[in-house]
């Protein structure tokens, strides 16, 4: 018999209470996994959007976040293309719109040049790609089309005006699958930003070479002091939306952790209080204080383990639900990042140790004769 066997069997003495405590922990872990998972997935998907097409630098006006209200000139794109060490340069205009009748908010609208490689990269599921001669035409991402109930050939209202849906596409990115693509001229007109793009994604030549990227970054920034050329990972990490999501997920996770710790503290305190005579007997038999403390912590960790298993599964189900809910399906991927699982389990272990610490240490100060007498 191992001491873990004693701990496990002790939990079976009050199965309903153990179950409730594990359920509380599972809820906390599920919240952590879902929130951290969504935040992590949000960030990694956004980063993948750039890295999977070989982007090395994101060029925007200085300011650190997506500058939807500011733009840079289309002429800048040509200047960048002419720089030594510059590879592919893609300019795009971006905006956010809402389809309130469908409860869809923060839908991304991208405006691309007719010859933009992005329009060739996405896979056309039905209809066709946008052409240079198209006016008031859009392509819809697969998820958005499903959420709007639109097909190629239908009309969709964007900015209060009818747009002809020429095609439905699928991308590797959940954001593009939830987005509207239109030609840049149409979007500039809708946003009243003639001759401007939100920014450029730039590939160095040779792509990914750190020295080439650094040199190109300097050359681009030398073109205009108000322009920042930022490496992809740094750009994604600096986005306000990412920061807010990260902070929010951590704040809510911390609250969940505190609540979970109180739950387990309550259970362990009651458990130790009920068994103080028995634990006094253990001490009389020569069990050292640390062994008793370890037994209590092991019980707590077992509860946390059970809570973690159920919580990770619950968190994953929550992520899947968000990925399939029409309101969030264009923003959330249905994957479970390893980091979210690790953080959920680590937080559960922390809750277990914090929750067990007080009753364990309190008992550690109690002499065995006192414990036996109190019984």
């Amino acid at each position, binding site marked *: *018999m*191992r*001491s873990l*066997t*004693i701990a496990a*069997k*002790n939990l*079976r*003495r009050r199965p309903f209470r153990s179950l409730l405590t594990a359920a509380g922990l599972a809820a906390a872990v599920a919240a952590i996994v879902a929130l951290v998972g969504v935040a992590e997935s949000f960030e990694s998907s956004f980063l993948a959007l750039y890295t999977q097409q070989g982007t090395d630098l994101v060029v925007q006006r200085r300011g650190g976040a997506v500058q939807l209200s500011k733009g840079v000139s289309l002429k800048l794109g040509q200047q960048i293309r002419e720089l030594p060490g510059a590879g592919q340069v893609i300019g795009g205009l971006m905006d956010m719109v809402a389809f309130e009748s469908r409860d869809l908010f923060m839908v991304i609208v991208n405006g691309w040049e007719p010859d933009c490689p992005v329009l060739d990269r996405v896979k056309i599921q039905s209809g066709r790609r946008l052409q240079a001669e198209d006016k008031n035409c859009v392509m819809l991402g697969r998820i958005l089309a499903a959420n709007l109930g639109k097909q190629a050939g239908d009309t969709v209202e964007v900015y209060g005006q009818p747009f002809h849906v020429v095609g439905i596409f699928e991308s590797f990115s959940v954001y593009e699958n939830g987005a509207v693509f239109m030609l840049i001229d149409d979007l500039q007109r809708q946003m009243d930003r003639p001759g401007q793009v939100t920014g450029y994604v730039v590939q160095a030549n040779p792509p990914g070479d750190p020295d080439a990227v650094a040199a190109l970054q300097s050359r681009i920034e030398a073109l205009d002091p108000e322009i920042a050329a930022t490496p992809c990972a740094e750009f994604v990490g600096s986005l306000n939306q990412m920061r807010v999501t990260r902070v929010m997920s951590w704040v809510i996770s911390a609250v969940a952790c505190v609540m979970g710790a109180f739950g387990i503290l309550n259970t362990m305190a009651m458990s130790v209080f009920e068994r103080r*005579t*028995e634990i006094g*007997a*253990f*001490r*009389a*038999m*020569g*069990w*050292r*204080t640390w*062994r008793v403390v370890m037994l209590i912590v092991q019980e707590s960790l077992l509860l946390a383990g059970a809570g973690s298993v159920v919580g990770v599964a619950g968190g994953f189900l929550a992520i899947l639900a968000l990925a399939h809910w029409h309101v969030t399906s264009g923003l959330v991927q249905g994957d479970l990042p390893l980091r979210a699982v690790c953080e959920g389990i680590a937080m559960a272990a922390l809750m277990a140790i914090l929750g067990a610490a007080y009753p364990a240490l309190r008992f550690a100060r109690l*002499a*065995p*004769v006192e414990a*036996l007498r109190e*019984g």
Partner: protein
Amino acid sequence: MNDTKPDALPRLVPLLDVRSICRTYDDGTVRALKDVSFSVFRGEYVAIMGPSGSGKSTLLNLLGALDHPCRGEICFEGQSLATLRDLDRFRARTIGFVFQSFHLLPTLTALENVQIPMFEGTLNRRARVQKAEELLCLVGLSHRLKHVPQKLSVGERQRVAIARALANDPLVLLADEPTGNLDSRAGAGVLDLFDQLHRERGVTLIVITHGAEVAARAERTIWIRDGQIDLLQMSGGVVTRCAV
């Protein structure tokens, strides 16, 4: 001292030497024990009797190194317990406790309950199981190894507790009202077991009891009243009055 085998020291060297101990509570207002002195020799079977509140349990706690006297000292094989740095280790290797209410873990089997004190010993997991089996056989419970306490009679539970007390081969078995929760038949069975352990294994037994039938089996009875030793009675009937 723990390496000393039962036969290595002569019978007349006190195993436990209690020297003028006092124990008070509540800042000295309650005097549980007053100037108590006696010795227990290796292999002896001693009963401690007295009315409720006489100080028997306090004395047992002090003998078992669970508590400290306010004055005086208790020596084990000549060494004062007050000088021992690791009382947990001392208790684990030297003392076996048998409690009135058994203190068995209800979710553990008899075999598992007996192994609890062995965690402080040196045996590995397999050896612990083997020894627990042997001890349960010794107390006549070889057919109850996998039973949880709830499936055992109260007499059997106390036998499991006795097997557990023997887990680390203690030099002294301290029993606090071991038959207090048992019917007469089960109580007699436990006392027979004590007799057997004393006779065959040379276990030193100190038993706190209210029952005259328990005291009758001991070689010596120490009567306590109002925190003082009142009488010392040998099994042959020799009585020494110590205090009134």
